[in-house]
C-alpha cells in the first residue's frame, strides 16, 4: 500500500513545487505575518479587549501564517485535482492509495511551511523553546490541512471554497480567547496550539492539557483530511 502511495505523493508534491507563485507565497506569507502583521496584532488585540502582548503576537502570527497557507493548499489539492485523482483511482490505484498519496503530500507541504514560518519567527524574535514552538506551528498546519481538505471535498466551486476557508480562518484567528474579551467562541480549532506557541515563544512551559488538546485536534484533522481525500477520489453516488 505505502510503496504504491509514496511515488504518487512525490508527484503530487512536485505539482506544488512547479508553481512559482505558490513557492513565493511560502516565503512571503510567513514573512509578512511575522514581520509586519505581528507588530500591529498586539494593539489590535488590546482594542478587542484581549491580552495578546507583542512577544506573543509575534509567536502566534507564525502559526496563523502556517494555518492560512496549509488550509489554502489543502483546499486546492482537492479542488483542482478531483477529476484526475478519480480517474487514477478508477484506473487501479484505488481511492485509499490516492488519498494516502495526497495526505503524504499534504504532510510534506505542511512540514515545509512550518519550517519556513518557524525560521522566520526564530530570525525575528528568537524562540526560547524551539522544539515546542515547531510542534505547535505544525499543529496549526495539520489542523488547517484538515479544514482545507474537507472544504475542498464538499464545495465544488473554487471561489466559494476558498472564501469558506478564509472565513473559517478569520473566525478562528479573531475569536481566540487571547484576542477577544467576550469569549464568543470558547473552543477554536487552533486554541490549544496557539497557547503552546505563545508559551514556547515566551520561554514558558505548557501544561499537559494544552499538548493533549493540540495533539488530538491535529490528529483528528489529519484523519478528516484523509477521509476528505478518499471521498474525492472514490466513485460518486
Amino acid at each position, binding site marked *: 500500500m505505502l510503496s504504491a502511495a509514496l*511515488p*504518487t505523493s512525490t508527484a503530487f508534491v*512536485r*505539482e506544488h513545487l512547479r508553481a512559482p507563485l505558490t513557492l513565493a507565497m511560502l516565503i512571503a506569507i510567513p514573512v509578512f505575518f511575522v514581520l509586519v502583521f505581528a507588530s500591529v496584532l498586539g494593539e489590535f488585540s488590546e482594542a478587542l479587549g484581549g491580552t495578546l502582548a507583542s512577544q506573543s503576537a509575534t509567536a502566534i502570527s507564525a502559526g496563523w501564517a502556517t494555518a492560512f497557507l496549509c488550509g489554502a493548499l489543502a483546499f486546492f489539492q482537492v479542488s483542482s485535482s478531483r477529476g484526475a485523482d478519480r480517474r487514477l483511482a*478508477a*484506473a*487501479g490505484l484505488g481511492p485509499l492509495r490516492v488519498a494516502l498519496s495526497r495526505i503524504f503530500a499534504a504532510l510534506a507541504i505542511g512540514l515545509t511551511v512550518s519550517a519556513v514560518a518557524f525560521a522566520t519567527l526564530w530570525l525575528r524574535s528568537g524562540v526560547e523553546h524551539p522544539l515546542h514552538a515547531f510542534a505547535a506551528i505544525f499543529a496549526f498546519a495539520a489542523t488547517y490541512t484538515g479544514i482545507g481538505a474537507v472544504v475542498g471535498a464538499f464545495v465544488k466551486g473554487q471561489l466559494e471554497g476558498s472564501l469558506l476557508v478564509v472565513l473559517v480562518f478569520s473566525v478562528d484567528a479573531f475569536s481566540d480567547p487571547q484576542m477577544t474579551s467576550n469569549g464568543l467562541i470558547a473552543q477554536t480549532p487552533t486554541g490549544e496550539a496557539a497557547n503552546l506557541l505563545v508559551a514556547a515563544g515566551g520561554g514558558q512551559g505548557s501544561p499537559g492539557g494544552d499538548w493533549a488538546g493540540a495533539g488530538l485536534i491535529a490528529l483528528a484533522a489529519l484523519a478528516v483530511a484523509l477521509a476528505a481525500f478518499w471521498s474525492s477520489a472514490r*466513485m460518486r453516488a
Partner: protein
Amino acid sequence: MAQETLAPTTLASGGRVAVLTAEGVEKSFHRGIWPLRRKVEVLRGASLEVRAGELVGLVGENGSGKSTLIQVVVGLLGSDGGSVKRPERIGYCPQQPMLWEKLTVAEHFQLYGRAYGMDDEELAAAEANLLDELQFARYRGYRIEELSGGTRQKLNLAISLMHEPALLLLDEPYSGFDWETYLRFWEMAQRRRDAGMGILIVSHLLAERERLDRMYELCEGRICAC
C-alpha cells in the same frame, strides 16, 4: 448497482466473448438546493453489450446520457439500478482530459503505469510505442499546461491504451485532433479491434457509422436504436 468482473468464457449472442454487458442502468442526479431541489433522470434503463473484437458506437443528442453511461461502466459514478458486467482491466478516455496541469507527459505515463500494475519494462515499451503511434514524442518532457488541446487529447487517449485493456471506453476521444491524427486514431482503433479488444466509442457524429461494427443510439436515457 451490481458491478461484476466478467468471466472470460461468457459468450454473447454472436458467439464472441462479451466484454461488457450493461442491463437496465438507471441514474438520476439531484440539482439545486432545498426546497428548490429537483431530480433529473438521465439514464432510464439503458442496456448495451460489447463483444471482444468489436468496435461499437454509442450516439445520441447532447444530454442524452452517453457520458453518464460510460462513467457508470467505468466506476466513476454509481448507478441507481441495473447491472454492469465488465473485465477488471479496462481503458477509459474521458471527454475532457483529466490530467494534472503541472506534471509532464512522462510523469503521467509513470503514474498510470503503476496504477495499471505494469512493470518498468512494460511501461517503457508502452510509452515509446504510444508516443510514436500518436506522434507526440517530442512533448514527453512537457508539462500539461504547456500543451495544446490536441496534444493533451493524445495523452488522454494514450493513457487509456497503455495497458492494452480487454475493454476500451472512449468518450469523444478525437475532439481537438487535426484531420491526420483523426484518421490515425481510427487506424489505431481498428488495429486493436482486430487484435481482439472490445471498443465502445461515444460520439455525436452519425457520419462515423461506416467505421463501426455496430451502433447504439441513446434517446432520453434509453437505447432507442441499435
